[in-house]
């Protein structure tokens, strides 16, 4: 329990450090006059500055906990000073004047913040995070430098959020790293509420914050060391700054919007789609006010912030967006990547596109977590789009949403990849809810009834999800017991950690790499390094070149066992292991066997 509280306190210090650093970076641009926007801009830009500094220090071989802690302490002190300045004379929300249902919405959002903090305090257990979102930063910290990870093609995605996760490792441990995406989700939620308040007042602001944040999808995404909450944060702040320019014409807002657009493109390739959608929307909304200078004020900072990731890929692989568009993977890995991306959703025809709303609502599991997406978006965004202001604004919003959804549909239809779009959709849904509630008793009954029911259903799901993490976060369950329940094949990883030493090197095929403490090399997540069809010669060469002493494969993995047979080995152990089908829903598969071989001749 004390450890969890310490993680929360350090997360607060991290937020202050981002505020302090961002204030320094944005000093030349001055203030906007909107305190909340100023504060969030500084926090967001500060996080971006820390991420890029970590990226640079990592490639220079200068990752150091001591140095990082000193910088954070200094920046946090600056952040406290800036926070005092921002809060001095500020009009804080007068909660006593809120109506009961507004208090209920505020309470719901606070409840979700608590649920999120609890889930984040648990040891990291989502497969993607174990494989690379946290797995790679752990390896970088251990080595004191960042290096290429060719075994996993996803490690070539832009890694801004992973750099902040790495910062958490430098500050303390992996759990501290997991707080970075959670903090970004809080900033995103504040941006949604703030922007909505400026557009349509307190009622819409509270509703928008609840629609965005008080839903299982956001909670799951923000507490699983994923990237999309960071994308939502960058997109929400870019959007709010663009809106600020639309209303007040301040050129500095365009520069800051550009910084956040670049940040989105620097978090994940998906961010490029978000930036495209944002640019289309902004171009329509600002059509008559576009000049070359204004376009450059947005585009130059965006490019500068995003470019390091794409230049790095171009240098390492010759393909700035490796492994997409221009390829680069071996044939079987490329085929597996394509098949994986296409495996989500229920098809890619025009009819499939038109059926997306219905399918998301009634068969969300096909979209990997679509059942966690609140129905309020589909229920009220159409109405919100019809009534949300001047025609040009409505067209701009509709075009931006259409661009994003079509690109999402054509690439990979994972529900959480919609998260970057949700800040805008939440504001539109809130506007739609209020518009319907204002149209007669029946309209009010439907708006209130549907909203309340959806929020309650979401709270139920979220409570069940978060409850899984309470025992370990409160110190009533050991980390080992928790990991045994939540991490796929953990017994095998534990066996390797216990029986092998620093002089050994195991070749394996598991995703839970964050918890592998002994030297290892993988076949590649999709056979990137040693394809499934590799024959005796290629297998023996790979093993020799990598200094492999042991091999761990699942008994039912025929292709890998065939490759083991090419080697001169002896069977060391048979370990019963349990695959976790869904950590979110606590579903496990039938027990399997992990076979662990020792090579007869060491390299």
């Amino acid at each position, binding site marked *: 329990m004390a450890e969890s509280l310490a993680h929360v306190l350090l997360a607060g210090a991290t937020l202050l450090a981002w505020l302090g650093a961002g204030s320094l970076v944005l000093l030349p641009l001055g203030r906007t006059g909107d305190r909340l926007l100023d504060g969030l801009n500084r926090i967001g830009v500060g996080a971006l500055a820390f991420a890029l500094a970590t990226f640079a220090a990592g490639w220079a071989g200068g990752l150091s906990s001591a140095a990082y802690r000193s910088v954070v302490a200094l920046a946090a002190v600056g952040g406290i000073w800036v926070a005092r300045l921002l809060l001095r004379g500020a009009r804080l929300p007068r909660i006593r004047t809120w109506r009961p249902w507004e208090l209920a919405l505020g309470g719901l959002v606070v409840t979700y913040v608590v649920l999120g903090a609890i889930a984040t305090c648990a040891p990291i257990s989502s497969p993607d995070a174990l494989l690379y979102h946290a797995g790679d930063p752990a390896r970088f910290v251990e080595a004191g430098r960042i290096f290429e990870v060719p075994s996993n093609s996803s490690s070539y995605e832009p890694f801004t959020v992973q750099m902040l996760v790495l910062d958490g490792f430098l500050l303390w441990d992996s759990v501290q790293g997991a707080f970075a995406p959670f903090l970004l989700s809080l900033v995103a939620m504040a941006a949604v509420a703030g922007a909505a308040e400026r557009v349509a007042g307190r009622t819409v602001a509270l509703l928008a914050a609840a629609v965005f944040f008080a839903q299982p999808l956001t909670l799951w995404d923000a507490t699983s060391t994923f990237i999309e909450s960071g994308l939502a944060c960058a997109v929400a702040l870019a959007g709010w700054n663009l809106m600020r320019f639309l209303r007040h014409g301040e050129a500095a807002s365009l520069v800051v919007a550009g910084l956040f657009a670049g940040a989105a493109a620097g978090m994940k390739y998906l961010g490029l789609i978000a930036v495209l959608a944002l640019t289309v929307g902004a171009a329509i909304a600002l059509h008559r006010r576009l000049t070359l200078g204004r376009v450059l004020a947005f585009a130059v900072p965006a490019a500068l912030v995003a470019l390091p990731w794409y230049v790095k890929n171009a240098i390492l692989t010759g393909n700035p967006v490796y492994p997409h568009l221009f390829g680069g993977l071996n044939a079987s890995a490329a085929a597996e990547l394509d098949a994986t991306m296409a495996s989500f959703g229920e098809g890619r025809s025009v009819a499939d596109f038109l059926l997306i709303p219905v399918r998301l609502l009634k068969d969300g599991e096909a979209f990997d977590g679509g*059942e966690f997406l609140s129905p309020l978006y589909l*229920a009220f965004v159409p109405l919100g789009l019809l009534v949300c202001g001047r025609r040009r604004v409505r067209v701009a919003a509709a075009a931006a949403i259409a661009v994003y959804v079509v690109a999402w549909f054509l690439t990979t239809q994972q529900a959480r990849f919609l998260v970057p779009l949700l800040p805008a959709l939440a504001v539109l849904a809130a506007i739609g809810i209020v518009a319907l509630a204002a149209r007669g008793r029946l309209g009010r009954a*439907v708006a209130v009834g549907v909203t309340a029911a959806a929020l309650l259903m979401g709270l139920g799901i979220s409570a069940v999800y978060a409850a899984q993490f309470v025992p370990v976060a409160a110190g009533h369950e050991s980390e080992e017991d928790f990991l045994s329940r939540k991490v796929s094949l953990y017994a095998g990883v534990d066996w390797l950690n216990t029986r092998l030493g620093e002089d050994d090197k195991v070749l394996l095929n598991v995703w839970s790499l964050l918890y592998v403490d002994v030297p290892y090399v993988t076949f590649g997540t999709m056979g990137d390094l040693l394809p499934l069809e590799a024959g005796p010669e290629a297998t023996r060469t790979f093993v020799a070149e990598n200094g492999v002493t042991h091999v761990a494969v699942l008994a039912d993995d025929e292709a890998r066992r065939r490759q083991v047979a090419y080697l001169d080995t002896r069977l060391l152990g048979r370990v019963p292991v349990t695959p976790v089908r869904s950590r979110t829903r606590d579903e496990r598969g039938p027990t399997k066997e992990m076979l662990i071989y020792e090579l007869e001749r060491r390299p």
Partner: protein
Amino acid sequence: MEQRDRTPDRPTNDDTGADRAERTRPDRRKAPGGAPRAAYAAALAWPLGCLALYAWQLIGIAGG
């Protein structure tokens, strides 16, 4: 005593009760807020449909 407007060009108040009722009766083709009734019905039915589908999905998941 009630003051009466005796302005010569004042329009006479000669409409019938039926005219008055017609003027003040709500337009049956319009919903609250002035929207067409069909659009209003759709705006009411769509969220309910979305919620029903979502609830149906959750029941299915809970039931295994």
